[in-house]
């Protein structure tokens, strides 16, 4: 239900209209909040436009089992989420969960993956989920197109993918239908707490709201301290390559290669510490291409039609930050790497909690305070 209008026109101002911000906006508006989304313009560092579109569970959460559980929950809720979006907008975001593979090109690699999965599942409080370590022959029955160098791989039935660009558009269509005010060209410069609410100075004028949610990707690092929060995120560059549309031949996503519903083959990705530079490096693209061909030799003949480098939003440990400000209650920060995977959670689970004004104990583990604990000698 609509809350008393304390700070100005809106109940909630969301900073950032990428996947995280628009999923939250969709969820908040469904919870009855009057929402404004403040976004940058056409040119922006926006990984929501450059990601790999996996809804991926396998391997995540080593070091933080709660993250593994959170990820699994989103994967489980994703089909329902996609259904809600389709019912509302008529658009199919092409979510499929056929199970995903991580092919390995050497025995060491396969062993390392198997060990990591084992350690992951041996963590206390881990919510276990099924996975398999496959030898070459077993893998080949599932993925007949693997090349001779593939020695085996890991498989998890919870892994899937979607059309993430269409997801972004669908969320924007959805929030429009829910009456959310989406404002491009409103980069937020400053946030102040005033009269029990927040005033946001933007490139397009001042906005007032009772609550503020920082979902500004990289820029949350700058904005968070203005409301007593912290978001120590850094950019990590990832190159991605896409081929021309091809008749369906790869029926499962893998961690490196997947075929989209439209037919193009997406090939990823790299991990580079290069600041905000998104210049493509031919050598890096080449290394990505070479690995993909070793895994799936018949990709070699396909034409590359596009490639780009996008910037992951990474915290020091790679896990998300979900937190309400202690000194400025009503201010929240939401930042994560896997905004596609976690979209269902953000829309269906997190948004109602933000609407209610309390994240509860479950999210304490995701507080940025974990980065400030002095290291024991």
């Amino acid at each position, binding site marked *: 239900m609509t809350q008393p209008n304390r700070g100005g026109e809106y109940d909630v101002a969301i900073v950032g209209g990428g996947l995280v911000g628009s999923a939250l906006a969709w969820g908040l508006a469904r919870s009855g909040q009057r929402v404004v989304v403040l976004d940058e313009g056409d040119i922006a560092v926006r990984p929501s436009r450059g990601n790999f579109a996996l809804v991926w569970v396998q391997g995540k959460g080593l070091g933080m089992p709660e993250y593994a559980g959170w990820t699994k929950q989103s994967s489980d809720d994703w089909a329902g989420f996609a259904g809600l979006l389709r019912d509302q907008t008529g658009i199919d975001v092409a979510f499929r969960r056929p199970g995903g593979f991580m092919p390995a090109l050497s025995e060491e690699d396969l062993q390392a993956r198997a060990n990591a999965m084992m350690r992951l599942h041996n963590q206390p409080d881990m919510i276990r989920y099924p996975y398999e370590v496959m030898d070459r022959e077993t893998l080949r029955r599932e993925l007949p197109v693997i090349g001779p160098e593939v020695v085996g791989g890991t498989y998890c039935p919870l892994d899937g993918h979607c059309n993430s660009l269409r997801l972004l558009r669908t969320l924007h269509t959805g929030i429009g239908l829910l009456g959310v005010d989406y404002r491009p*060209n409103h980069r937020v410069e400053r946030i102040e707490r005033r009269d029990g609410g927040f005033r946001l100075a933007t490139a397009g004028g001042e906005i007032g709201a009772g609550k503020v949610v920082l979902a500004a990707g990289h820029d949350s690092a700058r904005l968070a301290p203005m409301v007593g929060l912290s978001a120590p995120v850094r950019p990590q560059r990832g190159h991605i390559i896409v081929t*021309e549309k091809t008749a369906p031949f790869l029926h499962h996503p893998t961690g490196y290669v997947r075929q989209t519903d439209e037919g193009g083959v997406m090939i990823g990705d790299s991990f580079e510490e290069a600041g905000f530079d998104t210049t493509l490096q*031919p050598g890096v693209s*080449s290394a990505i*291409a070479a690995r993909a061909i070793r895994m799936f030799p018949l990709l070699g003949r396909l034409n590359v039609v596009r490639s780009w480098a996008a910037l992951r939003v990474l915290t020091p440990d790679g896990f998300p930050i979900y937190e309400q400000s202690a000194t400025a209650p009503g201010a929240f920060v939401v930042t994560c790497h896997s905004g596609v995977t976690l979209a269902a959670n953000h829309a269906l689970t997190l948004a109602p909690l933000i609407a209610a004004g309390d994240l509860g104990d479950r999210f304490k583990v995701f507080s940025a305070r974990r980065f400030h604990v002095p290291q024991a000698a």
Partner: protein
Amino acid sequence: MSGQATRFDFDIAVIGAGPAGLAAAALAAGRGASVVLLDEQAEPGGQIYRAVTETPVRDRKVLGPDYWHGAELLGPLRDSGAVHWPGSVVWSVARPREDGPRKDGADGPRRIQIGLSRNGVAALLTVRHVIMATGALERPFPIPGWTLPGVLGAGAAQVLLKTSGLVPSGATVMAGSGPLLWLLAWQYLQAGARIDAILDTTPRENWRAALPLLPGFLRSPYLGKGMKLMLEVRRKLTVIGNVTGLRAQGDGVLKSVTYSRNGVEQRLPADTLLLHQGVVPNLNLANATGCAQRWDEVQRCWRPTTDDWGATSVEGVALAGDGAGIGGARAAEEAGRLAALDALHRLGRIDRTQRDEAAAPFRAALDRALTGRAFLDTLYRPAEPFRVPADDTIVCRCEEITAGAVREAVRLGCSGPNQAKSFLRCGMGPCQGRLCGPTVTEVIAAERGVSPAEVGYYRLRPPVKPITLAELAALPKTEADIDAVLKH
């Protein structure tokens, strides 16, 4: 002049072997720089002088004297010592990561890496300076039915004539505006080809706007030739003026063209429809290299920002010819020479005074060649409905996205083409926005009620032309490149 087997290091790479590139390469190599001239076509000449060395059209009067001028650029190139690699598709121009400020303390230009593909093999060239002479593209002409087989660009028809001696044989309609349309009609007349009608879409009000610029045009070298040619076409062919609407129709293949004129629609049977409404800079490579560009309100197109010498915002990268803004073949040639002189200066081969002195005659010739341009640009500025089409018209041919879908994206909050691209996929197909970019910008601008300059253009990335994954995979890689991919 053909490529020695494997040399991968040059002072200067010239990309594009049209008039600008031919002149630039010849001048720079003639003065001692090592120059490689790259072009995806099998023969030098670019678009205007396409197949000038080997055209099967032997009757010289068909293609006209301006065409044959192209042959004069080839001798100097041959004598200059420039290395010419035809059939080379350049898909990337970038500075290698490890090339920071020079460590040896010497000054002089840093290195630039060129990704090219030749005979199905990709390679990286290292150069100190790049002159892009990438020329022009036909401006998109989005009308209902323009994707039907049988509808081609007039420029395409001209390529068919020059390279293969092919002319349309069934019912043929030409439509649009601009000098090239008249030139092609004239060439067809000389060749005895059939043209049923020319539908002239030049807006009546353009004449009014252009009139004040007429004195400039009267001094232009185009005047005599252009007028004579247009008059001859008008005398001998059916020219229908003031056409304000066009539709190509047919069930799977073109059957007829419907046009409106003074509010009345008429239909012409047609097997071939040749469309043309001017040309725009081919800026994909410059854009993907990071060169700044600006909106040109008179020519209504984007053009990379350049200084008097063609230098772009990216150090070591210059542009010459129509790729930097439409000026025509003769202007392109002179611009190529100016860019070459500046390159020699930047490479330390000539000093500033030598450069400026050598440039003087070229600059004068450039000014002469550009005289009267403003008149042509204004007169042949395409009418709004042909640049900003109605909802049902496809604007992105690759992904089959209509103008209506673009408008809907704007209503969802897309303020520019990049967000529209991710929402709709317009510009994501193999042509990489070449045939929809100008239209998408203008449709968004009109819908938002702001100028195209504010709306912006696609941000492009290499490869600007498709290469196979295997080609990409075979490129040299550094340790760091491999680590970035495998260490995870």
